[in-house]
């Protein structure tokens, strides 16, 4: 029986900076995960639709536009609305500490800032998903 971690990786909203998200997507692939890359300029609705159809364990969103306080809660709300509150929503980008804390309080997972080693992201996802599947 085969059960790789499936991750939807993408960018939401009007933000065309995709170098970082591609580096992360490649790192997760190299860690043995199945990475669904959604591409740029996704709507939260689009992301959640893909997350459901692909039955992912993780939705990882990159936001560098400053719209994180709108987009993360919206995605969370849509996932919950579809009964997929078990999906780990996490991400990265330029996100101030205060906002980060607030988002984590809402139920968003880790948000990684610039300069984070990809090994740290991989280790976080592996640990988090193992714990969730173990339940």
């Amino acid at each position: 029986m085969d059960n790789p971690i499936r991750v939807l990786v993408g960018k939401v909203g009007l933000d065309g900076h995709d170098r970082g998200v591609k580096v992360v997507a490649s790192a997760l692939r190299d860690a043995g995960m199945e990475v669904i890359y959604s591409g740029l300029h996704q709507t939260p609705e689009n992301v959640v639709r893909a997350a459901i159809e692909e039955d992912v364990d993780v939705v990882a969103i990159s936001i560098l536009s400053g719209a994180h306080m709108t987009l993360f809660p919206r995605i969370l709300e849509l996932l919950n609305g579809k009964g997929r509150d078990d999906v780990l929503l996490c991400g990265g980008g330029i996100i101030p500490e205060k906002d980060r804390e607030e988002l984590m309080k809402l139920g968003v997972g880790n948000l990684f800032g610039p300069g984070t080693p990809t090994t740290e992201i991989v280790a976080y996802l592996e640990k988090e998903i193992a714990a969730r599947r173990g339940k």
Partner: protein
Amino acid sequence: MGGDRVALARAMTLVENGSPGAADLLDRVYPRTGHAYRIGITGPPGAGKSTLVSRLVGELWKGGSKVGVVAVDPSSPFTRGALLGDRVRFQDLPDNSDVFVRSMASRGSSGGLAFKTGEVCDLLDAAGMDTVIVETVGVGQSELDVAAAVHTTIVVLVPESGDEVQAMKAGLMEIGDLFVVNKSDRLGAERMARGIEDMLRLSPARHDWIPTVVLLSALRGDRFPELLEAIESHRSHLEESGDLAELKTETARSRIRDLIDACIRQQFWATDGVNEQLDKALELIAAGGSSPYSAADEIIKKFTGGRG
């Protein structure tokens, strides 16, 4: 679709992972399959398969069809990880339950599909889809599993796909029921299409069908009515000739064989003493006293009652 999208997606994961319960699920689903018409899209990397599929989905949906898509991309043979990027091209899907797209990693299968792609198509079929489109990994000349998994196989090529000698080779060019020459605005597109037509005229017709060649640009979306018409006439041909029913029997036959093969293999390697015998044989081979051929022969004779 009637059913629950979350449940459908979960069922796909269950089947794909070969989790306990997958066989029971497929057993229950099977009687509800057979409604969906299955179209395979294959061709070399970069030919425009995903763009074509995404456009085709839109056109079929506009025509009132519920459409399921299974898009396969390769898994790494080293890490088993995969980057599934076909959704990038699927940006303008109708936002409703008439369209369902699933990405699959090939997970060690080398035929251009994943081992469980056919079963995932069954789930879409049973969920009420009218059309199921299978997009293969970007293939070379010999990843041809798709032809046995669908009703109409479309081979997508581009003007740069090669000269007539490439088109004469065995493999990919033999499985197309339809050929699409994509990127029709490029130099040599017309000549490529005519070259394929010439080649096809010289080949023996499979199922009494001479493949159609459609020259189009998936990006611009022109000539899709022509493509839809070509698919429809191939379908009518299969229905009239009885080949459609035959295909279902053939699929069932190969599924049964695969399941039995897998079961026997698993049973054999779980037999007491087999692995110990293998280790012993390996020591002997290392010492120069045996070969893999005689070792296999001995092991088979010993553990299957001499049916080697």
